[in-house]
């Protein structure tokens, strides 16, 4: 019972953090709301007894990925973006109505479904008998999922090389940057000039 109360509490915080994140004008506030959401998701993992994933969620997701976002945000001139229009004028109401409709559809479908467990046998007691959650987790990761694990390292390598190539300054690119650099303070005017 206490678990259910805690789950509802953290789930409400997750939803509140998500809503807060997509409605902020200031990008740093939105980022902090996303980090808050991720920490509450880690609490939900703890309630599910996925202890290793809860720690990974905080260290990798909230700690590494979102701080990477924060670093890049710090390079930008954030004030100019706060003063601009934040939403698409034409599609925002349609998108909001569509989102609510799809959520209602989800709830309508899910209310009619009862899930049946596959009973894989890894109950908390069985996991404790096999040496704990992290040991069972890594046993499955390095035996059954070894090939996807190795492919994941290739994905990370490709992403790293791609990121380096994308941000690298080329000679031709820096020329166009100089042409555009002056007098392009307001983005709207840049676009008009270019058109």
């Amino acid at each position, binding site marked *: 019972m206490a678990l259910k109360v805690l789950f509802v509490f953290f789930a409400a915080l997750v939803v509140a953090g998500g809503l807060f*994140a*997509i409605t902020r004008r200031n990008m740093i506030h939105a980022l902090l709301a996303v980090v808050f959401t991720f920490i509450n998701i880690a609490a939900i993992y703890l309630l599910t007894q996925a202890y290793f994933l809860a720690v990974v969620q905080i260290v990798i997701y909230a700690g590494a990925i979102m701080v990477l976002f924060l670093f890049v*945000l710090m390079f930008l001139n954030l004030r100019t973006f706060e003063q601009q229009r934040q939403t698409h004028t034409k599609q925002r109401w349609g998108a909001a109505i569509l989102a609510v409709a799809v959520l209602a559809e*989800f709830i309508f479908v*899910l209310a009619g479904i009862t899930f049946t467990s*596959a009973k894989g046998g*890894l109950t*908390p007691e069985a996991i404790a008998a096999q040496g704990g959650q992290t040991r069972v987790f890594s046993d499955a990761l390095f035996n059954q999922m070894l090939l996807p694990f190795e492919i994941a390292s290739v994905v990370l390598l490709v992403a790293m090389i*791609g990121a380096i190539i994308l941000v690298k300054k080329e000679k031709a690119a820096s020329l166009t940057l100089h042409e555009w650099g002056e007098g392009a303070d307001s983005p709207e005017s840049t676009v008009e000039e270019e058109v």
Partner: protein
Amino acid sequence: MHAASTTMTIPVDWYVYLSATLFIIGAAGVLIRRNLFIILFSVELMMNAVNINLVGFSRFHENMIGQNFVVFTMVVAAAEAAVGLALATALYRNRRTLMVDLFTEMKG
């Protein structure tokens, strides 16, 4: 009796409802906002909604594959963040804006 009292006290439906809600919030963020960074945050929210589902069902079906899969989702999220941020940096350097409806060079 002890085993029955400790197994699966949170119904799996609750995970699916939470996951659906968070996913819809992320999708609405992608559709409504103009700011490229908020759109990237919304994509991260959607990926986490998927992870909640995977963890909830992993516990429900009493195996570890779902939790293993969350690791791969995180790998893809990290790769997506790295490439997405590189693209955002390159776009900002060239155009001095982050509003996605102003990037219209590819329009035919």
